[in-house]
Structure formats: structure tokens, C-alpha cells
């Protein structure tokens, strides 16, 4: 039946179109509406803090050493109990990530001995200037709930002598 065949095919096609009219649409109304990211999504970096507000980053520059794109730049200085940024002797006085260079591979997370650098869930990065792509430390640091948690802090002598905390084996 060479005449009927195209008509049946056409009908089948129209039926598919018709059926999808009654289905829930998949389009997300970005930016009003956002889909949650996956648990292991690798977005923009965040420098974490301990609960007391001290920075986890100790300025060891292992992230910079691990970075295949040479996007991270760290300079460190010495802590004192009067002006303490992180536990132990050393903290990052400069911490910069060039977001245009970064390939979001997550090697920095793996290299970090204190779990200070974490690739977060933010992915909306846009710049109007190349220089803006260099995120300094104050942009990368996690926000604090209260101003007394900001660094540097004045701390009790002898309390924060160790840089690398005893950590559980990373689970993931």
C-alpha cells in the first residue's frame, strides 16, 4: 500500500508532537530558576575556615605546585598570637587564583593538606577585564557569621601551634 504508508508515518509523527504537549516541560527558567548541582560538582574555589574563624589555609603552596594550569599563586608569612590568620606558624599572605587559567580539575583540593581549598558550587563567573579574573584571597575566603570570627585574630599563646590538624582519611 504505497499510498497509505506516508499518511501513517505523518500521523505517527503528529501523535508524538501532540503527546508532548501534555508532558511537563524540561526547560529551566534560568536565572530565576536554577538546578541544583551534583555533589561532586567542581565550581569556583572557596577557602574554608575552621569554626573559630581561623583560616584553614596555611600557605604551603602545594595547590600551586599541583596546579596543571599554573593558575594559583601563594605567598606566605609568619603568624603570631597577636595577629593570627591560621593555626600554626605559617599563613597565606597572598592567595590568588586566575579563574581564566583554571581548568577546574580539582587537583588543588587533592593536594591540600588541611582541606582548605574546596571547589564550590558557584559556576557563574564572568569578567569584563582580564585582571578581574584574578581572584585575591579576600574574594576566595569563606564568609563569616560574625565579625569576631574574621582574621587576623588575637589568640591565646600556645593554643594554635600546629599547622596541620589530625584529619580523618578523606572519605571521598
Amino acid at each position: 500500500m504505497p499510498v497509505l504508508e506516508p499518511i501513517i508515518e505523518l500521523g505517527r509523527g503528529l501523535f508524538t508532537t501532540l503527546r508532548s504537549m501534555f508532558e511537563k516541560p524540561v526547560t529551566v527558567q534560568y536565572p530565576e530558576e536554577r538546578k541544583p548541582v551534583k555533589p561532586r560538582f567542581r565550581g569556583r574555589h572557596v577557602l574554608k575556615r575552621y569554626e573559630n574563624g581561623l583560616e584553614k589555609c596555611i600557605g604551603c603552596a602545594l595547590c600551586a605546585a599541583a596546579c596543571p594550569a599554573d593558575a594559583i599563586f601563594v605567598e606566605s608569612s609568619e603568624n603570631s598570637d597577636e595577629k593570627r590568620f591560621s593555626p600554626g606558624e605559617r599563613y597565606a599572605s597572598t592567595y590568588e587564583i586566575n579563574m581564566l587559567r583554571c581548568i577546574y580539575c580539582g587537583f588543588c583540593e587533592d593536594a591540600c593538606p588541611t582541606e582548605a581549598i574546596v571547589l564550590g558550587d558557584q559556576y557563574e563567573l564572568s569578567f569584563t577585564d582580564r585582571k578581574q579574573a584574578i581572584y585575591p584571597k579576600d574574594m576566595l575566603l569563606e564568609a563569616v557569621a560574625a565579625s569576631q570570627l574574621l582574621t587576623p585574630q588575637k589568640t591565646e599563646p600556645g593554643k594554635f601551634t600546629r599547622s596541620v590538624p589530625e584529619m580523618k582519611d578523606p572519605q571521598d
Partner: protein
Amino acid sequence: MAKMVSLTIDGRPVSVSEGTLIVNAAKTIGIDVPVFCYHPKMEPVGMCRQCLVEVGRPAIDRATGQPVIENGQPKINFGPKLETACTTPVSEGMVVLSQSDKARASQKEILEFLLTSHPLDCPVCDKGGECPLQNLTMEHASPQSRFLFDEKHHAEKRVPLGDKIWLDRERCIQCARCIRFQEQVAGEPVLAFYQRGRSTDIITSSEPPFDSIFSGNTTDICPVGALTTADFRFGARPWEMKAAASICSLCPVGCNVTFNTRREAKSRARTGTTTAGGKVVIKRAMPRQNEQVNEIWICDRGRFEWHYVEREDRLEKPLVKKNGKLEKVSWKVAIEEIGNKVKGNKEEVVVLASGRLSNEDLFNLKQLADGLGGEALLYDSLPGGELTTKYGVSAGTNIGDMGAGTTILVAASDLYHEAPIWHLRVKQAAERGATLIIVNSEATRLDKYAKHLVRCEKGEAAKKVRELGAAVKDAKNLVIFFGADGSSALAEACAELVKSRAGKPNNGLVGVWPRANDQGALELGFKPAQDLQAVFEKASVVYIVGADPIGDGAIKTQNVKRKPFIIVQELFLTETAKLADVLLPAQAFTERDGSYTSGERRVQRFYPAVPALGETKADYAITALIAAELGIEVEGRSAGLVMDKLAAAVPAFADITYGKLAETTEQWPIIGRADLYYGGTSYQNSQGLGVPLGRENKKAEEGSL
């Protein structure tokens, strides 16, 4: 020639001289026996036990006294216990197994013990990345420790041993390298162990504390991050830094150094006296091996005092005086200004150069002065120093070879402060048996090693040296270090003693110059400036390079009756520079290449470490620009080309090229390879050992043989 002994290490035959330690014998054929406490420059102590190896010796038949032969091979008896490779000398037919199961197990377990008290804070440790403990742990240790983590020994982490050196007691593995360095090499035993067993600490109880001028070397040989310098503390990670070979410019020893450089963050604010923002800066100075000059050591001046090149007040643009004020101008305007002023007064030009300049700079200045018919003077050198160009030590001289049979005379010089590495090496020569004679008006730290100590009034050293004449006449070798003692009489008296020995290796004069390249200036024909005040008044144009006679008080401006036209070439706005009519900004030695001639008459090459600042130019290039303006042909395109011209013009420098200066040969101890635990973090020399002057004599000698 020492007797040779043949043995096998890990199945490989090796033949070394009698008395060699197993660890060194292994090293010569590229087998690295791990060590912590052993250091090739110090007596072995065998206290860390890391180097345990299996040692077998051929069985001897008691009846015949001959080795027992089994199946055609000599029978080897292995000891029941392992032996330390760092304290056991080799013997004929010895068989050493450094990689047997037994040896490897011991190496693994010793590391496990060492790590029981070590904090493993490698991420914040300055040594991390160039740390022998880290490397050997990766290579030999087990990933798991059987010791309880909670029972780790905790100790103070920030103990200043002195102004320059910090101790982290927790990281220390008690190898005593620093203690032994101070005791055996530096001769200032101000470090010691305190307590015993697990609570052993490094202490200093002296007053003032750890103030040795060689203290920085302990951080190099420390096999962990226990000793760090205050200067470099947390400065950079070792793998981030680039290395540039250089020569220390602070004294006439000419120590080979390596500058480690790194680019700083753009955002970085001004810190202290230097601006780092986005620039490549020097982070630290490290020794570079040259067994004929500084071995693997440098003094703390060389290690820490290079900071001046990064001072913020460096001159960056040429300046010309207009209406009594120095104003920034372009190079073209500045050079034209000089041209206009000099063209009319060519003969009355005086070049006053400092011994801080390189051979190339000085040669060009001399060319310019000669071309104009003016005078080339060397500022503030040693009185009578020009005698060293005639009777100075010649090729083949090495203080490291001196021992019994050599007499070393140190006249009117405090080597500890004036040329610290010479102090160190002369002291060691005296300990090897060289006869050390000191003539000085004041006590020096070298006095206690002297065989004869002659005290004299200031200015009378020459007389005393002359009196010594007969006593030193019969010495097999005689080297005389002389310093400033008022007049050239001392130099003449010293020269008198070595005259007959000129040209022989390990004989001759060494001037303890105030600057790095005074020797070079005199070799190139500069005349020491006598009466600066008169020179200043007589000349119509004075071209001052690298010197600050007014700041030093050598010229009193209020007494100057007639001020000449002054051209100053400098790094900073010195007192002299303030008076300049034209002020030209020069490059520091870290920003360019060139060569120095050390007090031991060794020409050594330095390389650029950091990019040049602003519009600065190398001294030789500036001189060439001025010369070109005045119609004199002077090479200024590159330092290497200047050296070619120099070698062609000055007989003492004949045949020296930049290629020759960059040549190296194998040196002992072998350092700077993957196993930096062996000799410490001193750099291997791959950029040149330099060429000694005075080779003509040597050639003649070789020819006569």
C-alpha cells in the same frame, strides 16, 4: 700516592685509596648509601645509623695467611651485624651489600624510629622539597608506622638560636651536623646537645648566642627543617624558585653563590625597603661548590647582605643637574651633556673607579681614560696592593691543599671579619699542619690557631714581617695574606719574602682587599688613587664609578677650591652622587653578567639573576656609550665581547674567554644531585669554576719538565 684498595659494592667493583670510607667509595660509582649524620666535610660519628650496610671480608686461612678459595672464588665472611658505611674504611676484597634484604630492612626501620618524633609538618616547613628526611622517607621508609601517633614527642617550634638562625626542636633528628660544623669547621663551638635520649635538644648557652659568621651554613647541612634562617623563613617553596649562578661581591674571596629568584605577586604591597609588586626578586643566596675558593660554604654576609641591590632608592633614570637640581633626562641627553663638557678637556679627565666593578667595566673605563689621555685611578684600595700583580699567588694555588710544609702568614688583617671564608680555610690549613704566623696589632679569632703570634703597634707590622724573614725562608711553601696597615711598607715587606718564590703554586701574596675586584682593577693597570683632594682640584672632569669618596670622607667638599665637572655612575643617590653634574644609573651585579678577579687571582664569572631595573645599564655599556660620543671605540655590546677584547689586550688575562670561565670539572665531595642529603643544599657548580691568573709561569714550568 696512597695505596689503592679494590672492593665490590652491590656487585660493582671499585678501586679507591686506602682509608676511604665505604659511603664515599660507593658515592664514587654512583651508589647512594643513605646518610643523615655523615657529612663529607666533617669527621664521621655514625650516630644516626641510617647508613647500615652488610659488609663481608675475605676469609683468611690461618695456617697460610692466604685468602680461602671456594669454587674458584675467594670465600667471603659476612659479619653477624650490619656496619655503618660512614665509619667503616674499605679493605681489600671487601664485599658491601647496600641493597640486601637485611640492609634495606634496617634502613626502613631506622627511618621509622627517626619519624617517631618528627612532626611531619612538611607543608609548612621551609626545607620541604629539598629535605633529605623527606627524600629518604619516600625512597626507603614504610608508609605505615608501628608507633602510636598520640605518643609523638612535642617540643618548642620557634626557638631563636641567634638573630639569624631559628630552631624547630620538634623537627630535629639529632644528627649533630650543626654542632659538629661549629666545632670542626667553623671552630666556634657554641651549639651543643642538652639532655639525653628522646628529650635531646640543640642549645646554645653562649653569650651572645649563635652569632658565628658561618651560622647560615648549618641550615644548608641540616638534613631536616630544624634550622632555618630568619631571612628566608617562609619566603618561598624551594621548587618555586629559579637558580642563577653568581659571585659574591662583598669581599675579595669571590665565593661562588647561587641566587634563588621568584616572581612576586602583583598585588603585594611594599615590604620593608623593597618593592616586590610583580617583579622577579632574589629570595635567598646559597653557596655554590667551588673547592678551590669557598668549598661548599659561604659566610653570613654573603648569604644575607645582598639585600642592598633591592633597596627602594635605586636610581632608575639618568639625571642631569640643571639650575642646581638633578633632573630626570633620557640617556641620549645625558650622554650628549657629557660629550659637550668632555670634548674640550680631554686630557684632564680622571676616571675614579671602585673595586666593586667587574673586570669588563674596569677594562672599558681604562680604555676610555687611555683614549682620552686621562688617568684611571682605583678608589681606596690596599696600600701597596699593586705588588700582588707581580708576586700574587699563581695558578694551582688552593688553600684547601695546604697543610704541613706550608707557612701561612697573616699580616695586619682580621680575616674573620674582612674575608670570612679565608679565615675558615686558613684555620683548616693550620689544623692540617700548616704553620700559621699572625702579625697583628689587635687580637683576632684566628689567633688561637697560630703557631707564632706577633703583636705589634699599629703601623709597625712591616717591621715585624721583615724580622720574620729568616724564620719563613725555609718553608716549602709560603703564602702571605696582608691587610691595610697605614702604608705600602707592609706590602713591600711581604713581597720581599715571597719574591724568590714567584710563579710557584701555593706561594705568593694575597691582598685582603676592601672590595671584590680591587685585584682585577690593578691587574688591568689602574693606579691606586693617592691624594684624592688634589686629583679633584686638578682635574676638569671627574668620572666616578661605583665609589663614594665624599660619603666616605675621602674628599672634604668644604676644602675643595675648584669643583670639576662630575659624572657619577651609581646604584644609589650617594653623597658623591648628589654633587654630580650628570648622574648615570648602573645595574647591580645581580642584574647583569660580568666577571670578578678574586684576591687569589681567580677570574670568575657571574650571571644575571633578576631583570634590570628601570632604564639602568651595565657599567661597561655606559662607558662604551660615553666613549662612542667622544669618538673612541670601546666594546659595549656584551660583557663576553668585552672580555674578548680584554684578553687580547692584557697579557695576564690572555686566552680567557667566557666559555673558559664557564668550564667545570668533577669536584669532591659530589653534591647537588638527587641525594642532597650527602652534602647539604649547597648548589652543584655547573656554571664555571673560573680561571686563575698567573698561568704563564705554570706553562713555563710544564714545558721544562
